[in-house]
């Protein structure tokens, strides 16, 4: 074990600094504000620090380490050129409050990204300000809320979400002050139009839904759903976390949505960084555009004494929407993430459809291969599809309930068994509507060989003696971690007294 707080070299700092500027009078802190006790930070030299974090990294699993089929998270390869681009001069030391003529490059990239997302989603206006998917949801719901307030429809206090929705959907709507109406899914995992019709009324502000849904199924009735909600006077909100399945094939706009968020970090490969940063732009139809948070990137032909930008013939500038809800992040969003995602977009351009096609190809192939290998190994009775369907989209679910019933093997056991075989586990126990759920999303950047081998391993895990599987993982840096112990014996920081 390498412990940061064990390092306490007498004089050490890992980062020597130059001598400060010399002043005539030494600056002072007000007497009562002088720091009394220094933070008990460790003292490491650079070599110790480098070794500590190298060691930690080796105890962490990323896409670069191995297959990472975490459903709903789109763990695709993060192209390395994007990291180079994000470190070019002209981004690290750019301040969002610099004048527009200092930011023509940034503005043009923002403009290009807004435009691209508008085209891909069939929306009229995109803002890049939200910094994650959940914040995008919140932002769009806030815009819808102001839209209704503006129209005097203050009675629209409810937001409808399917029970298969991601937790952020209800949480975001509730944060904006809405009441949540949850509608149950059909037995086949799809949306229940009748249930929707039953709840959509003049109190409905919006319906939030993702398509393909969290079971990886395309909701073929989506236009009908849109019509029901619209008829009731509500707005349709598209959770874009699953955009990787449909980009270039269909769009939220075509399906009748009024607003959408994108998880750029998923669809456009911003590295997930162990939990973030992300970027959660939203797109809206024209009627919602005046309510967007500002400023937006805009451009025009130069007028008067304005010169074109250093970038092209246009002049790029910020634009404040008329009835803007204001800001959801203090600046312009995660510009650094946007630039990486711009680089990703440029790689595909008009060919983005190939990305989604291969994502869906890989998901369906993996589903096929898992069934095939399980059959070969005689363990195909231990799980069933989370939903009946001919084709899945970019991800699919399996229910481990049969294994649980027959052998006491839970989805979690299978997950841990996969860890032992060098894989990140799929998402487990989500969506809640599938019992003992495993949600598998391979992404387009995995080779057929990887998928075949994973399928074999999956089958082998199911053949493992249940006792042994309960004890998994055994090859990982630590074995099964006691989450109950953690919650009961809260230790949320280093206790110096040890």
């Amino acid at each position, binding site marked *: 074990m390498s412990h940061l707080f064990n390092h306490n070299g007498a004089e050490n700092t890992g*980062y020597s600094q130059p001598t400060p500027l010399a002043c005539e009078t030494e600056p002072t802190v007000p007497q009562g504000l002088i720091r009394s006790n220094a933070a008990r930070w460790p*003292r490491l030299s650079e070599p110790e620090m480098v070794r500590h974090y190298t060691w930690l990294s080796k105890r962490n699993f990323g896409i670069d380490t191995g297959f990472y089929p975490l459903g709903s998270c789109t763990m695709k390869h993060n192209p390395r050129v994007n990291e180079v681009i994000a470190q070019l001069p002209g981004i690290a030391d750019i301040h*969002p409050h610099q004048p527009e003529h200092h930011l023509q490059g940034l503005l043009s990239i923002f403009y290009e990204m807004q435009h691209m997302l508008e085209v891909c989603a069939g929306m009229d206006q995109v803002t890049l300000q939200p910094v994650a998917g959940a914040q995008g949801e919140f932002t769009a719901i806030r815009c819808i809320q102001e839209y209704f307030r503006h129209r005097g429809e203050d009675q629209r206090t409810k937001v409808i979400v399917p029970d298969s929705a991601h937790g952020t959907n209800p949480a975001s709507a509730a944060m904006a002050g809405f009441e949540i109406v949850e509608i149950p899914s059909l037995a086949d995992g799809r949306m229940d139009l009748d249930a929707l019709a039953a709840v959509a009324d003049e109190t409905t502000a919006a319906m939030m839904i993702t398509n393909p849904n969290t079971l990886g199924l395309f909701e073929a009735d989506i236009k009908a759903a849109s019509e029901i909600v619209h008829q009731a006077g509500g707005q349709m909100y598209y959770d874009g976390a699953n955009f990787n399945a449909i980009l270039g094939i269909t769009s939220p706009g*075509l399906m009748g949505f009024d607003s959408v968020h994108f998880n750029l970090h998923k669809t456009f490969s911003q590295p997930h960084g162990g939990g973030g940063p992300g970027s959660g732009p939203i797109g809206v139809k024209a009627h919602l555009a005046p309510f967007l948070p500002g400023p937006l990137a805009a451009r025009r032909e130069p007028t008067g004494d304005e010169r074109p930008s250093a970038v092209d013939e246009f002049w790029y500038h910020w634009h404040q929407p008329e009835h803007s809800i*204001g800001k959801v992040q203090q600046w312009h969003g995660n510009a*650094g993430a946007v630039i990486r995602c711009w680089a990703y977009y440029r790689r595909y351009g008009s060919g983005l*459809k190939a990305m989604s096609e291969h994502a869906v190809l890989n998901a369906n192939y993996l589903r096929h291969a898992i069934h095939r290998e399980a059959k070969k190994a005689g363990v195909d009775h231990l799980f069933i599809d989370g939903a009946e369907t001919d084709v899945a989209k970019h991800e699919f679910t399996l229910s481990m309930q049969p294994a649980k019933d027959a052998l006491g093997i839970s989805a979690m056991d299978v997950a841990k068994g996969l860890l032992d075989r060098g894989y990140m586990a799929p998402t487990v126990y989500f969506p809640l509507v599938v019992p003992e759920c495993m949600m598998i999303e391979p992404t*387009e950047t995995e080779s057929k060989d990887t998928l075949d081998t994973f399928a074999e391993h999956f089958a082998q895990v199911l053949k493992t003696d249940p006792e042994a599987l309960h004890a998994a993982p055994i090859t990982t840096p630590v074995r099964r971690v006691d989450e109950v112990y*953690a919650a009961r014996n809260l230790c*949320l920081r280093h206790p110096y007294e040890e």
Partner: protein
Amino acid sequence: MIGCSPISGGLKQFIMSGTRMDFHIPTVRSVRAMVDQLPNRGREAEMLQEMGLSSMEDLFSDIPDDVRFKGELPLPGPQSEEEIISDARRLLGANADMGSRPSFLGAGLYRNYVPAAVFQLVTRGEFLTAYTPYQPEVSQGMLQAMWEFQTLISELVGLPIANLSLYDGSTAAAEALTCAVRVHNRKASQPNTVYVSALTPPDKMSVMHNYCQGAEIDIRTIAHNDDGTINMDSLKEAAGSCGVYLEQPNPLGVLDEGLTGVKAIIGEHTALIVGVQPVSLGVVEAPGHYGADIVVGEGQPLGSPVTGGGPLYGIFACTKPYLRLMPGRIVGRSIDVDGKEAYCLTLSTREQHIRRHRATSNICTNETLIALMGAMHMALLGPDGLRDLAHRNMMACQKAKEVLAATPGVRIVHDAHHFNEFAIEVQGSAAACLDYLDSNGIIGGLDLGRWYEGTTNQLLITTTDQTTLRDIESLSAQLALWAAHGEVSA
């Protein structure tokens, strides 16, 4: 099986059995962009066939025709890595880098030096390409790093609990307000009410408003004195509310000793929320030591460049009464089945994936990697390094104050202790002055007319560890010219 004899044949007997190349010199072909990212290009037919499908189209048979895109996306064609990088160079090169000229713009984001080791370690694939550590057994690295981050922040601000980041300083402040209301609303004599310093920058105020309006929280302001310190009479009105938000240093860079008396005035049932510039805590008292219940702040100056305003990371720390109603992810230390030290996410029942619409926050993807950069920077600095860094900031600020105080046409607005920024008054409009400075290659700070009414002739001047004497002298010289120029044209 192992072992081979590729070299067993003698001279001439080594014959290559690769595929015969069936071309002369290849003709110009279309760019193979994308292929490098899609390992199964060229294997589609094989894969489809195995599934009993005959075309890629078959994979989308479930998508009704009336919602289908027709044709190609109306976007430019794909590019290769080289083309992208050269376009990126051109576009980003059209930005004016703060590093290429004297810059005094800060106002919440601070140009700093991030040690080389930070970038090189944080970009290791195991950190960079991981996601939320749902499987702790293979995520001990990031979990432990975040647990250490929590400790570093906890020690820095003087509070026992810290989460592992929120989006940025503004959302951290906003979530602190809603958290305070959740905790104190029942006992508050001013329920659903919070008080915020009137100096809070409007963009941050706007974020607070958006986050608070859903819970119907009334945000009122606390006035300040002419010297930049908080007005104690105004503050008294906040007693009995759910929370008070103040910054130290305040948005005008003033270090306000008055904050040490606030908790006594507002009482136990009103949360004292202090927003900090984390570097200042190398020399300034930790708010936890003068009664803060929640400390928030923009983490950026520790570990991350300004990056056009994001990604950043929000600091959130608090005392125990707030623990179960606080936002964001938390790592706890635990044991594995063998009793071995191990780390995992904990207190998840507050979070959206479990509590759904009753969650304490909707946050899911956060800013872990940027927080990790912060942790790495903090680890490198150590207590002495932090003090040095804070000291460098203050020295640069003091030098700038000294030089500008002696610059004709410039007045330093607050006779106060400043950390690394301070307001000045210039001749005529601050906006015009900024333009003038800009045309002379200087980024002259923030026009305070953007923030407040009645300050259209004031600039917020920020210094950091990167400010040089030359920068300060250039600013002074140009401000003197501006003043002279203003007098002439007046």
